[in-house]
């Protein structure tokens, strides 16, 4: 409960209390980054593909109103029912009404970060609807009653032994058995019953194609297909930014998506849904939920190019060492830190500061989002909107005064160095966060400026 109120720094400090787990988390995700590198370097035209994907998304976002209406028209022609939702409430109400219409209080759902963002599971639970996540990672965090910590690898913060213990309780696997093969098999058997008995399946959407009115869902487990094919009603929830103009463009995005995500050449299943089978229904819910506001922010609209591969998380040295939950948002990591302030600037004021601005994220991003530049820009806005602490404001004004007055700077520097040499305990103590894990720099007697004045001819 209280965890929600703590910021990224505080939550990461808690995560870092177990160094062995931090090392494991870091190494696991770095391994995924290395797999991505291997896959990317296998495609000589990789950088050209990134540039093309970025340009296609730029074009689509610039003409989104046209592509959305074209997509709707084509989808309706294909026999799909199209719904529009401005935000979480509208979306969740539409899902509920479809469940009510189908006369069921049970739903299955494959991977959808959008429904995490809209808190659909919690909403449906309150309405007496039981939702079962069919993606293995999502099912694990659902049983743990935790949010996903990563958009592609939802349970990456949990070790296999913990999953063995969880499955022992919920699925009756042998106690102490953490064999991934056995655990996956147990989940599959359990899921089979879900697939065979549920009438309504919800899936996410990876790409919606304007020219054909079809949509594509990418999974490795085939769970979206199992659900969608066996159910009477298939609901697909998508954000407005999921559109691409043409089917041909998939040739660019499908090559980038999984190589960036996990280092695979392509997802095991890249399924196209276009027309409902006889007697069945397909519903698409097109969701805004703040996206059109972000589209209106010139500095941040490129964040809507995101195809949710998670490469920026895997490469981020901060994410790897702070865990996804420290971002207290449905989407963690660098991309989450530039999307979240758009939804609630006060709640997520800390996230753009949870970065060293190293720039690795922007350079692995398959659609070339300038993530680290946007983090810098969000910092400026968050401060100007008044979300910096008074202590920080005072410190920055003081620093500015010292640094913009050469005489004051020299005097303050000299005094500071004197203190560090003669009374280091003033700075080197437990109240100084620097000193907790690091020694302070050794202060020299003379600054460079002082040395220069003694040793070289001076210039004003």
């Amino acid at each position, binding site marked *: 409960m209280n965890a929600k109120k703590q910021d990224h720094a505080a939550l990461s400090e808690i995560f870092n209390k177990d160094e062995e787990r931090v090392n494991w988390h870091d190494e696991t995700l770095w391994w995924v980054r290395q797999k991505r590198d291997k896959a990317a370097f296998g495609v000589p035209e990789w950088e050209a593909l990134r540039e093309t994907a970025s340009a296609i998304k730029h074009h689509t976002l610039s003409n989104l109103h046209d592509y959305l209406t074209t997509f709707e028209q084509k989808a309706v022609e294909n026999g799909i029912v199209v719904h529009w939702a401005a935000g979480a409430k509208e979306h969740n109400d539409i899902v509920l009404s479809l469940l009510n219409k189908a006369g069921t209080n049970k739903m299955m759902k494959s991977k959808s970060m959008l429904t995490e963002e809209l808190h659909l599971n919690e909403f449906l639970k309150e309405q007496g609807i039981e939702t079962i996540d069919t993606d293995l990672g999502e099912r694990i965090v659902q049983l743990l009653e935790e949010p996903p910590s990563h958009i592609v690898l939802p349970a990456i913060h949990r070790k296999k032994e913990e999953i063995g213990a969880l499955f022992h309780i919920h699925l009756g696997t042998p106690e102490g058995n953490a064999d991934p093969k056995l655990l996956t098999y147990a989940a599959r058997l359990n899921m089979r019953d879900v697939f065979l008995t549920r009438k309504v399946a919800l899936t996410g959407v990876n790409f919606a194609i304007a020219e054909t009115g079809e949509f594509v869902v990418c999974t490795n487990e085939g769970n979206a297909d199992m659900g969608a094919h066996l159910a009477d009603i298939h609901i697909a929830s998508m954000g407005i930014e999921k559109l691409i103009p043409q089917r041909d463009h998939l040739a660019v995005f499908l090559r980038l998506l999984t190589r960036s995500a996990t280092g695979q050449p392509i997802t095991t299943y890249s399924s196209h849904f276009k027309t409902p089978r006889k007697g069945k229904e397909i519903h698409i819910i097109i969701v805004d939920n703040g996206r059109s506001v972000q589209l209106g922010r010139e500095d941040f609209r490129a964040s809507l190019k995101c195809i949710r591969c998670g490469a920026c998380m895997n490469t981020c040295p901060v994410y790897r060492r702070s865990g996804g939950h420290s971002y207290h948002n449905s989407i963690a990591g660098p991309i989450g830190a530039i999307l979240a302030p758009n939804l609630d600037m006060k709640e997520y004021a800390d996230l753009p500061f949870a970065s060293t601005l190293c720039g690795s994220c922007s350079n692995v991003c398959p659609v070339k989002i300038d993530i680290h530049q946007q983090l810098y820009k969000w910092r400026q806005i968050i401060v100007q909107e008044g979300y910096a602490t008074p202590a920080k404001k005072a410190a920055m004004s003081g620093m500015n005064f010292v640094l913009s007055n050469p005489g004051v*700077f020299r005097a303050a520097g000299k005094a500071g160095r004197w203190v560090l040499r003669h009374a280091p305990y003033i700075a080197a103590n437990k109240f100084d966060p620097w000193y907790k894990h690091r020694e302070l720099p050794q202060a020299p007697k003379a600054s460079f400026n002082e040395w220069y004045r003694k040793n070289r001819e001076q210039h004003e």
Partner: protein
Amino acid sequence: MNVALFIPCYVDQFYPQVGIATLELLEKLGVTVSYPIKQTCCGQPMANSGFEHLTGDCNSLFINNFSAFDYIVCPSGSCTLHVKEHLHDDKNKSAAKDIRSKIYELTEFLTDVLHVTSLSASFSHKVSMHQACHGQRGLHLSQMTELVAPPYSKPGRLLSMVKGLELVTLDRADECCGFGGTFCVAEEAVSAKMGIDRVADHVKNGTEYITSVDMSCLMHLEGILRRQKSNVQIKHIAEILNAG
């Protein structure tokens, strides 16, 4: 050639030997260097904390100090990048623009402007390179591992000219050290852990000296090395290129 030296504020105060090495190195290479003595800081500490709107005075001061020169050379990739990306002055737009295009980080000035092909330096030690992010991904001083592109390294090329120097390779060639300006105290736990992990990579691969184009990364890594009572030391690349 009319060259000015920009020594970042914390280098001035804590690492004067880096400023001296930079100056001596440029002088050895026949450059006449001026050091405007009223200089302070590029303003990055405020700007990266979200207070870019406070940096107007710093920017005006910077312009006053440096606009008269053909080139500005700075032994820091991060401060150079900040000036290149964020030095603005509404009252003096053209001077600000001019400075943004004529400021160089030290190693890129040596390779791209002076076209240095040999150095008299000698440093008979095992040295490992910490790729400072702003120099690498911002100024493109060397190729980053994220891009599918041919490798190169301007600082690496210069280090290869140093007699006796053995360059040590790392397991993770270009991971951030976790300094990050005010990040180092605001996000102390993650910052320190990143630094500890970076140091471990260098130590494991048998280095004697960790070098970099940025002293701020090295200050952070030095703090960790000294806390661990390690024998491994840090040296700014200017000190190595000026050694012997």
